């Protein structure tokens, strides 16, 4: 009766009670894993689209983590609903999840704004809403997302750590023209380049996050370019860029990789042949697990900021072999985000500390 989601005052009272008891039990209730009892809670995942491999892995990551949490008596149950890229349908599904009495809903929104009404309804019913990997604008929702400035910063920081602050020629490979993710990442690159005044952006191509397109585009622009020292990428384009440099008979510059299997395999091959060094980073489909634990931790009484930045999965030279073994042929590196790691991520966001990195597989 206590967790009846339609009854806001009761839910609020319960949360208050939980935080009070927590406050007594732990001296600093805000650090680490919140231990409030969530064994009676349920968490649903409203997904806008299930029709590609990235989303399939995303759903499986959520389901496996939720099943484990149910086994560990951390939650009572979970559900996944997917709409076929129809925003009105996703809104209807969120309304249904409210009716079904879920304690929390995590949302991968098909539209940044069109679900605002449904999300507001959920919040009004006392349900915790966590939106991830999409820019939902409704203020009552928690947002879990990457910061694309950090993406650009990590790329340039690596280049600086290897080559230092001297005049360098930089080639930037962008995504698909007009895409929101692409634009934000490019803006991050422009912003971060200002901190490295010696670096000179000498060219830009649209690689569409695809090896073949990137290869064609880079091959097209290379003859007009001076020698390139570093290539900034957006993921999926590193392998193609490397092929273009090889075909032109040029020395491989630092090409930042994007956690794809073909990119890591090429990196390993070049490293074994001539000690090539680079760095790889990217988003992971298992960001759904971060959203899941953020929702669980909010239910458990943890103080969570409205925006939780998720660390990008970064791969450095020493861990290359370990990561490469975990990636399926043609796939993307994925990682598990267990409860304690997510609690650390939340703490780092609260304390404005550097985000913890995902540790390499053993």
């Amino acid at each position, binding site marked *: 009766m206590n967790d009846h989601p339609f009854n806001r005052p009761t839910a609020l009272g319960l949360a208050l009670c939980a935080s009070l008891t927590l406050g007594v039990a732990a001296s600093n209730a805000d650090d680490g894993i919140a231990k409030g009892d969530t064994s009676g809670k349920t968490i649903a995942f409203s997904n806008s689209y299930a029709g590609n491999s990235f989303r399939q892995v995303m759903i499986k990551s959520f389901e496996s983590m939720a099943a484990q949490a149910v086994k560990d008596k951390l939650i009572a149950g979970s559900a996944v609903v997917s709409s076929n890229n129809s925003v*009105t349908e996703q*809104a*209807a599904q969120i309304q249904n999840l409210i009716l079904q*009495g879920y304690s929390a809903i995590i949302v991968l929104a098909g*539209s940044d*704004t069109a679900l605002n*009404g449904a999300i507001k309804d959920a919040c009004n019913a006392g349900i915790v809403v966590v939106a991830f990997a999409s820019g939902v604008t409704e203020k009552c929702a928690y947002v879990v997302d990457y910061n694309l400035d950090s993406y650009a910063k990590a790329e340039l920081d690596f280049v600086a750590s290897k080559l230092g602050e001297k005049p360098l020629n930089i080639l930037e490979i962008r995504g698909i023209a007009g895409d929101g993710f692409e634009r934000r990442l490019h803006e991050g690159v422009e912003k971060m380049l200002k901190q490295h005044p010696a670096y000179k952006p000498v060219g830009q191509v649209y690689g569409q996050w695809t090896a073949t397109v990137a290869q064609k585009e880079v091959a097209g622009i290379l003859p007009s370019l001076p020698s390139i020292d570093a290539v900034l990428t957006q993921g999926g384009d590193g392998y193609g860029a490397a092929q273009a440099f090889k075909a032109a008979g040029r020395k491989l510059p630092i090409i930042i990789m994007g956690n794809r299997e073909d990119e890591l395999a090429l990196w390993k091959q070049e490293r074994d042949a001539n000690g090539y060094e680079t760095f790889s980073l990217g988003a992971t489909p298992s960001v759904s697990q971060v959203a899941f634990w953020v929702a669980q931790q909010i239910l458990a009484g943890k103080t969570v900021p409205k925006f939780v930045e998720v660390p990008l999965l970064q791969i450095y030279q020493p861990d290359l072999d370990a990561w490469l073994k975990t990636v399926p042929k043609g796939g993307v590196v994925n990682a598990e985000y267990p409860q304690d790691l997510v609690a650390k991520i939340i703490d780092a966001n609260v304390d404005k500390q550097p985000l913890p990195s995902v540790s390499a597989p053993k």
Partner: protein
Amino acid sequence: MSDAARWSGLRAGRQRLRDAADIALPATALVVMLAVIFWIRPAAMSYFGFSLLFKLSTPLMFAALAQMLVIMLGDIDLSNGAFVGLVTCISALYLGPQPMLAVALFLLAIAAYAGFGLLIHVRQLPSIIVTLGLSFVWLGCGVTLLPGPGGTAPDWLIGFMNWRPPLMPLPIWLAILAALAGHFVISRSSYGAVLRGAGGNPRTLQRAGWSIAAVKTGVYAAAGALACLAGVLLTGLTTSGDPNVAPAYTLLGVGAVILGGGSFSGGFVSPIGTVIGALTLSIAGSLLSFVQVPPTWQIGAQGVILFLVLAGRVLLSEKAP
């Protein structure tokens, strides 16, 4: 004389029976689905539950009524969903700060709808081609106005959609009002007979001295107005505009019309049936999330439900005398 009167009385009675049978199927499907949902989640059987379950069916219902008018003429409208998307963009951008401009744009859009209706009639063009093309025009206009989803619905509109009228939730009131209004205009009034005739038997109508062009233009204008209403209401629900918000309305609307007893041959449509059909189709999606169908099966399962209900409709109409 008395024989003829009795005969026509009998025919009217049989017609009414057919109407009832047309509505019975979607109504039964609706009741069954609701029963399953309430069985799984009794808490949903409340004022709050009904308003959440049917909230998003309100705009679909008006979009389906717009589609019904076009199908009544023997045409089909593939631009309906994109048009609703365009209207959400206009509403989210202008309805709050510049209501007069918004209304002017709505009128312009409705006039364009009517104009294309006239074009289809005068040039005897297949409506399926013209409206398919138009759907891209509307989408293009929407994207030009609002390149990404955004804007805000005016507060009075959001307030209206969240209004809690006495006795029954707002979506149910609107459904009843729309069904009754449609019923009296289309199925009962003498003018309604003319409208249905324009689709079912235009020659006779022409001989009786009516201008088919005028009737068709008027019906297309009314369809545009209803689609406008759907878009405005949808904006109130989502609180923002998005050109890609409602492409599914096109085919769900057609489904609702056919489910509710309409026929592609023109002339036969039922406003009450269409409204119930729209409610049924929007509940079909909800049902799946209540029975927890695995996500990978949901899209397919929704198609199966649609197919089953529509197949039931075809079977029923074959058995009817």
